[in-house]
């Protein structure tokens, strides 16, 4: 795959197949951590970091271990991937705490939440499903994380203003956030003509 194709995969993951608005991955943090822009950026940074590392770690495992013709253990994919992601998150947390305490202070509280963020596992599974090469996998993960951050930050910006709006009582909180997300999704549908 040429560099141009990889860039197309990346742009596609940001806009056309936006992980939150089009693929429905990572909805829990999208609704939970989108109340302030600073929180949204912190979560986005943590996701970018873990997504790249998880993609880089699961690709060789899938291609050299799970798909190994002598082993025949492709059915262990789910168990192996979730264990790799969970231990990776722990590892990243320990390393950051030890060597980059400043970064840990800003991303730390978001890291434990990431193990159960389906966007991470989702990007690893999609890399396998789409049969991407190693470099394309990294571009895809990068685009997916940027798309996730974009959706999260846009949402946080809207919700900061929603706080002062007069929302019907039964739609306050999550329901209005979903309706806003739906309207954002309609806007993002416009990108589908790009590819």
């Amino acid at each position, binding site marked *: 795959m040429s560099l141009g194709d990889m860039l197309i995969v990346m742009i596609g993951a940001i806009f056309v197949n936006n992980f939150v608005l089009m693929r*429905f991955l990572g909805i829990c943090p999208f609704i939970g951590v989108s109340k302030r822009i600073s929180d949204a950026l912190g979560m986005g940074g943590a996701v970018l970091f873990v997504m790249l590392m998880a993609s880089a770690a699961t690709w060789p495992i899938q291609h050299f271990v799970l798909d190994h013709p002598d082993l025949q253990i492709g*059915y262990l994919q*789910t*168990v192996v991937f979730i*264990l790799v992601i969970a231990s990776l998150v722990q590892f990243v947390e320990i390393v950051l705490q030890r060597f980059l305490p400043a970064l840990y202070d800003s991303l730390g509280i978001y890291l434990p939440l990431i193990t159960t963020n389906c966007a991470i596992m989702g990007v690893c599974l999609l890399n396998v499903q789409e049969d991407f090469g190693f470099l394309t996998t990294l571009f895809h993960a990068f685009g997916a994380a940027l798309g996730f951050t974009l959706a999260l930050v846009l949402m946080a910006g809207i919700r900061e203003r929603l706080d002062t709006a007069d929302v019907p009582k039964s739609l306050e909180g999550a329901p209005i956030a979903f309706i806003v997300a739906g*309207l954002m*999704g309609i806007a993002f549908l416009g990108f589908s003509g790009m590819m």
Partner: protein
Amino acid sequence: MATETKTLSHEFLKGFISENPIIALMLGLCPTLAVTTAAENAVGMCGAATFVLLGSNLIVALLKSVIPPKVRIPVFIVTIATFVTIVDLVMNAFFPPIHKALGIFIPLIVVNCVILGRAEAFASKSSVANAVVDALGMGLGFGLILMVLASIREVLGAGSWFGIELLPENAKFLIMILPPGAFLGLGLLMGISNRLFRKEA
């Protein structure tokens, strides 16, 4: 005995409205939005999630005194991942069309917070009978919302229900089966349920 049956029915029923995983606890939102394009997919996801919940709640409740508290989360995750693998293989063998329609959302049941949430918050602290009933109630409560949302989306967006044509060709809202329709549908559904079941709203 009377109190025991009362609590069992309570554990079962709470999953439908008062502690419904989707509309009250806000868990498991990704599959809710992603698979509700057709009622058939909702049934498949409900079956798969209920089976995994039942299996993991049962194992966790049986082993709760043996699992060291410090490593309980990894133990829960591996238990859940095992049941997810079983569901994945069974659905691939016996229901290939639904397996294909649900796609990566079957392996992603493993990160569905409803299941880990029930293992951690409920099954690891209660009796086997309560844990099983809780799993059934939560699984079916999850399925109930999936069914309602999927029915709304399929009827409005595709003009059919379980593949049966209901609306004429020119009376469909295509947006409802596209991704934004899922957000709009769930947002309104949550609003309606707040209106009906919460006193303060």
